[in-house]
């Protein structure tokens, strides 16, 4: 018996130590508590979101509780229950799967808890928005990247009849936001350069694996399959894929004349910090969690503080025919020369 007692004391100490080490404090009673239901905390974006939200919370003397569902909708519903039973004052959610949106929103309405969706729209069975949301304007991102690319081509004498010039536009068919980005890029590119030969246009599928390896593989296959192309102009919808394309161009010996534009800038910044402008990775569109968090926080505070009803949030940015507001944010272009000043702490 003594031993069991001793063992349990040891466990208790270990547990307390573990918790002490991670520095958790019990929430105070009257403080405002905001729940952040992260879809997949492993990605940098969500960690940045948490960081930005915490900054806003600090100003209001509020606390952020973060829970991670690992993209498991069941887990997320569970965490929603836990948050509700913990009496949170509002919820910001990256919904793990859009199909559970209505369940999530219904629960919050029932409990009278304000909610704003981020990144992944909250939609009902018909695909209509069912709670205020903030999301990245994928199409808009494609637009600004294509605009920058076309300007670059004009500045560097890449012009009609575009002999030996190929336009590679990466996309991933299963992810709607990526498809939007690629569509935006494609449509803008051809509306600005209607003479660009369709034979020299390559819209390529990166497949599910994602990441730099996927970008590298698909680019290498496209480059070696089209030896007539000597100059590549490339738009990659994800930054690490852009990095893969750059490596593939370098290995094919085509890097000097080619140009890669990517979206996100979280990988490009390393390349630029390392090599300066001595790379064919010429630009990236940059957006940060701040752009998202600022709107999400505003939307939530409109409910928590001003007591606005769900349908009155983001009233000025509703899409036609929609009951709830949707804020779309885009980014801005950064290059090796200006990325530090524009990206600020995200450049490090």
């Amino acid at each position, binding site marked *: *018996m003594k*031993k*069991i007692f001793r*063992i*349990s004391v040891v*466990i*208790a100490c*270990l*547990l*307390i130590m*573990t*918790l002490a080490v*991670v520095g*958790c404090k*019990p*929430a105070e009673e009257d403080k405002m508590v905001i729940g952040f239901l*992260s879809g997949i*905390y492993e990605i940098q974006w969500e960690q940045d979101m948490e960081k930005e939200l915490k900054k806003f919370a600090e100003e209001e003397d509020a*606390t952020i*509780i*973060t*829970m*991670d569902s690992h*993209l*498991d*909708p*069941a887990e997320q*519903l*569970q*965490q929603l*229950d*836990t948050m509700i*039973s*913990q*009496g949170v004052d509002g919820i910001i959610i990256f919904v793990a*799967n859009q*199909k*559970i949106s*209505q*369940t999530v929103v219904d629960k919050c309405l029932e409990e009278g808890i304000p909610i704003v969706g981020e990144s992944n729209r909250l939609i009902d*069975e018909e695909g209509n928005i069912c709670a205020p949301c903030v999301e990245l304007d994928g199409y808009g991102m494609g637009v600004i990247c294509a605009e920058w690319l076309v300007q670059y081509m004009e500045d560097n004498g890449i012009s009609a009849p575009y002999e030996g010039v190929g336009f590679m536009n990466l996309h991933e068919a*299963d992810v709607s936001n990526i498809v939007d980005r690629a569509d935006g890029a494609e449509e803008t590119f051809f509306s600005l350069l209607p003479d660009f030969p369709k034979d020299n246009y390559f819209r390529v599928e990166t497949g599910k694996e994602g990441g730099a390896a996927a970008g590298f593989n698909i680019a290498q296959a496209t480059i070696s399959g089209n030896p007539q192309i000597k100059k590549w102009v490339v738009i990659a919808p994800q930054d690490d894929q852009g990095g893969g394309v750059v490596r593939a161009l370098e290995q094919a010996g085509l890097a000097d004349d080619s140009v890669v534009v990517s979206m996100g800038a979280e990988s490009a910044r390393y390349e630029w910090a390392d090599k300066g402008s001595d790379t064919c990775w010429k630009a990236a569109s940059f957006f940060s969690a701040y752009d998202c968090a600022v709107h999400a926080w505003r939307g939530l505070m409109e409910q928590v503080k001003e007591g606005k009803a769900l349908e009155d949030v983001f009233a000025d940015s509703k899409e036609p025919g929609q009951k709830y507001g949707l804020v779309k944010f885009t980014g801005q272009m950064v290059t090796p020369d200006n990325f530090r000043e524009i990206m600020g702490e995200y450049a490090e």
Partner: protein
Amino acid sequence: MRHIIDVFKRSENVGLVVVLIVVIVVFSVLQSSFFTVPNFINILFAASVVGMVMLGEAMLIIGGQIDLSPGSVAAFSGVLAAILFERYDLSVLPVVAIVIAAAVLIGLINSQLVNFLKIQPFIATLATMSIFRGLAHIICGGSSVHIRDRLFIYFGAGRIFGIPISIIFLIVVSVIFFIILNRTRFGRHVYMIGGNETAARLAGLNPERIKVALYIITSVLASIGGMLLAGRMNSGQPVAHNGLEFDAITVVILGGVSFSGGSGTLTGCFIALLILESFKNGLLVLNVPVFWQQVARGLLLVIALSIDYFRSIRRKKASKDQ
């Protein structure tokens, strides 16, 4: 008092009970909102699906088998149910009947791979895990399917007297299998084939038939869990339940079931389930940073299993002294 202590000492699950108490006490002290009825209901609610699969997995491992496919089977069942509702417009009863029939078939496939093709259970069910995950994606075209049937959703998300129906399901099924495993001939046979399959065969048992039953039970339980959850999410999700079987296996091992088969109790597994879910919930409630939660969960496993280790050493010593 002496008597109570004696019972306590002899019980296999002392270490687990101690851990459970410590976990609950520590979290309650650190955060008062942990120790509330709604939160305990949350904990049980979260445990309900893993609990279902745990029951099947525990019996399989006691019987010297293992099944890696329940997560896929649960996802497949949820999607299948959703499709039967949406595309074929069936009502709850036929849908449940068809899905359970499919689960029986899956269990049959698993057991025949093990019995007739003599594939190691680990490998055989690794294969079916992949197959049924794939099929779950195929039958719904890769994206999740909405469920509108009110009754079906009620089973997944509804409550009776404030208690979620999933919990009632889990408790009823647990009691049934507790009785089956402990009091019936079939249950005893499970222990025997897990303890020594050759000896069991020579004692006139039919290990193949018992394995068929075990794999079917596990698939059906996974399928019921999958349907309950689909009801709760208003949709069949092909990506749901990833890693469900590993959660269940972790609980089973923590619950004192020997990986080599032949010993263990469902009571131990149930306590282990409560420990893991309480701990998970406690970390959330305390707002421990996400990555530290993973570290803490690993530490809990190490601690709980080392208690088991020290206890077994003590038991060995005791039996040597005799």
